[in-house]
């Protein structure tokens, strides 16, 4: 029955007031409202407030390669310790294979190498390695798929944690760091003025190692390709006279053993980074420097030699200083990276979207202007088309719709994006469709010879079915956009999604209540739109 029952009136009033209450903070300057009122504002998307969106891919393939390389070293060590002669140690297809010289020792090798495998921490039924022996005395070691997957997952989790620590050190406005899919991380940093620094800070693996310089082979010979096993040739930065250095693969200490790192200045006044080892690191470094006085060691960051000083005397205090080609800012960034820790795997920036704050403000201005003008057009047109009364009722419904939509966006803190503004305008423009459907139905019924009350009643009830049908499909389309769309399109979809609910509510409830009131007050003999 078409009637403004008390609960409907109450519902509409409450909805309108709540809508107003939660929309209000967006309309007045911050702090102008009393403390008990909500103060949340619309959450503007990065394209409107300026900021950077970075999609990072955790290079799990590199992680797997690196683990295979480590495994070769492990195999070498285990076989040597067990005094088992071997040849042809190397990797093929992601697995490590080695040939045992003496057939009698194959079983022993299998046992020794099998001990390298461990059960997975979260699934003890599965081992990390599969060790197989072939008839030609070859032992083959491969990581199980479960282990590779487990590693990848852990690497992504750790990466998120470390990225968070690094960005927190920058002190920018709450960045959001989320996982996407199996191997991706999304960083959204609003208001970051220098995306390059952010990228630099996130994109570096920052693995710090201290390694001894290998001087058993002259550098020229090594550079010509004769690198001894267990050593590696690495580039050196800022030293054109010595572009590469031959280093022992084994590290004396690593960045994990640091407890602190700070930007500082060396005795010549150049920017440097000072660091402190934990107890384990201090002991290891003390022992190594004591044994190697007057030899060189290298400080290596991400496989590039930063500096390679001579060991003048044993360093046992656990403190040290890295000098190199630093500016104040790069020294500061390196200190941040060392404090936050190394990434477990390299990250690549696969997608970057940066919008300057000024451009964002231009977009907001254009959006506000077109929303306001668009609404004025719709209001004028509705009044022209349906007159003060029915047009006015449609406008009131539209206004409450707009308030509810904005307040829902504010309360959920869903990001309002530039396409989202378009969605807003469109939703409001098409929301009058519900009123139009109701009015046109009523006109039909009047034409069919009904009295005003039955015409309104019948027209309203019949139109509601159409409105529901039309809006359910709309809802489905919005949901698809939300789940499959990227970035700004998600914001657009969310605006549409909320808009469908508020539109149906206002069309059904607000229009009904207002028409009911009018009818009871005026008792009209004809409808003004008929």
């Amino acid at each position, binding site marked *: 029955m078409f009637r403004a029952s008390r609960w409907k009136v109450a519902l509409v009033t409450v909805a309108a007031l709540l809508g107003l209450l939660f929309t209000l903070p967006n309309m007045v300057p911050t702090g102008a409202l009393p403390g008990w009122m909500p103060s949340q504002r619309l959450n503007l998307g990065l394209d409107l407030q300026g900021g950077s969106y970075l999609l990072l891919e955790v290079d799990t393939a590199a992680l797997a390669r690196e683990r295979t390389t480590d495994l070769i070293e492990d195999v070498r060590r285990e076989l040597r310790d067990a005094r088992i002669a071997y040849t042809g140690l190397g990797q093929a297809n992601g697995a490590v294979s080695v040939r045992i010289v003496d057939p009698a020792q194959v079983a022993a090798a299998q046992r020794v190498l099998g001990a390298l495998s461990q059960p997975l921490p979260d699934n003890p039924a599965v081992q990390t390695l599969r060790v197989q022996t072939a008839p030609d005395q070859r032992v083959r070691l491969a990581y199980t798929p479960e282990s590779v997957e487990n590693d990848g997952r852990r690497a992504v989790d750790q990466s998120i944690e470390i990225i968070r620590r690094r960005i927190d050190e920058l002190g920018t406005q709450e960045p959001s760091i989320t996982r996407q899919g199996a191997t991706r991380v999304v960083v959204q940093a609003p208001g970051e003025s220098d995306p390059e620094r952010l990228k630099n800070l996130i994109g570096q693996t920052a693995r710090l190692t201290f390694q001894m310089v290998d001087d058993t082979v002259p550098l020229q010979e090594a550079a010509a390709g004769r690198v001894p096993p267990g050593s590696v040739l690495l580039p050196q930065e800022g030293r054109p006279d010595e572009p590469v250095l031959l280093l022992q693969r084994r590290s004396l200490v690593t960045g994990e053993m640091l407890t602190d790192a700070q930007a500082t200045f060396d005795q010549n006044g150049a920017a440097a980074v000072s660091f402190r080892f934990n107890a384990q690191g201090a002991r290891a470094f003390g022992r190594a420097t004591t044994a190697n006085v007057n030899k060189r060691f290298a400080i290596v960051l991400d496989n590039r030699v930063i500096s390679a000083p001579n060991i003048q005397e044993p360093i046992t205090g656990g403190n040290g200083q890295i000098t190199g080609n630093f500016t104040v800012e790069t020294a500061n960034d390196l200190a941040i990276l060392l404090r936050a820790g190394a990434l477990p795997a390299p990250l690549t920036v696969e*997608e970057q*979207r940066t919008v300057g704050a000024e451009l964002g403000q*231009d*977009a907001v201005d254009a959006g506000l202007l077109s929303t306001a003008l668009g609404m004025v057009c719709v209001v004028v047109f509705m009044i*022209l088309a349906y007159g003060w009364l029915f047009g006015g009722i449609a406008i009131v419904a539209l206004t409450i719709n707009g308030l509810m939509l904005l307040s829902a966006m504010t309360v959920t803190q869903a990001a309002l994006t530039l396409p989202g503004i378009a969605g807003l305008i469109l939703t409001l423009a098409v929301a009058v469709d519900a009123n139009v459907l109701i009015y046109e139905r009523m006109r039909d019924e009047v034409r069919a010879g009904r009295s005003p009350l039955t015409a309104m009643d019948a027209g309203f009830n019949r139109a509601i079915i159409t409105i529901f049908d*039309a809006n359910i*499909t709309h809802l489905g389309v919005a949901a698809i956009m939300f789940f499959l769309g990227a970035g700004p399109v998600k914001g657009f979809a969310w605006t549409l999604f909320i808009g469908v609910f508020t539109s149906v509510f206002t069309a059904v409830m607000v229009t009904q209540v207002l028409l009911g009131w009018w009818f009871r007050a005026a008792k009209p003999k004809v409808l003004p739109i008929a």
Partner: protein
Amino acid sequence: MSWWPLIKLLPQKTNLRFVSVAPILGAISALACVASLFLTLYPLTPPCGGLNCGVDFRGGTVLEFTAPQPVDLGRVRSLAGSFGLGDVSVQNYASPTDPSGLRSVSLRFQTPTDGSPAATVTRVRSTLTQALGALTFSRTDVVGPAVSSELLRNGVIALLVAIALVLGYIWFRFGFTFGVGAVTALAHDVILTFGLFAATGLEFDLNSIAAILTIIGYSINDKVVALDRVRENLRKYKKMPLGEIIDLSVNETLSRTIITGFTGILALMVLAIFGGEELFPFSVAMIFGIVVGTYSSVYVAAPLLMVLGVRRGDRDAAEPLPPSTSARVARP
């Protein structure tokens, strides 16, 4: 004031013979669809064919910056060219802070396939800053090849899922024939909108997919209104020929079609004019979609019912209403 409210000016009852021209228009629509498909796909080069894809789907890098003084575009081109980036496009553009557009430059290039896609940007930015002075970078978009193909795939999936969903819903509410009619009309709208993008060279990006999905939403809204009335009249006038029922239904919903379509177009016009550069393709596509969507309700969806035939006389094919919505008005 006899002319106001305007709604009174719309004739109470129109008797336009829509169906009579349906065969001609149907042929034109079919031709337009073929032409649109051709324009969209030709020259069959992946990933975008005839569409002017933005970096979202093609992958690549866009840098927009403003210099303190007018910028020599040739210089920017040669600086960027020194990185071996392949196709580099350099353009001026106007903005509120730089109305002449001489100081603002938009630089586009393909993202190199080796290494991190965003790493090149860092080098290009510092080179440009060194050469041209303090630049303000207002926008940086980098889309790597893996991401762009994913975005395109997701976009296409979204369109297909949306159409399938509409088919499912209309089938469930109105029966199979109506579902096929509505979805054919919907496909018509989508194809023509693709044609619009291909023919005009409007940039096709993520927003365009959103626009097309919204067109699907609007268009299906329009079709539901039309089909709803057809179903109702089928029940009301059991002996009337289908062609006449369609004419009658379209005439009855004509005033609603005009008013709602006009309001939507009005608001979108404002958006196209004042909404800024980025929303322009979106607004134009939506206006086009409203026009095409309204047209196809009358000339694609409804006439298809005549081709496919609707079972009459019993209450099944045209009206499997679930019990929850059957509480409708009793008609005397």
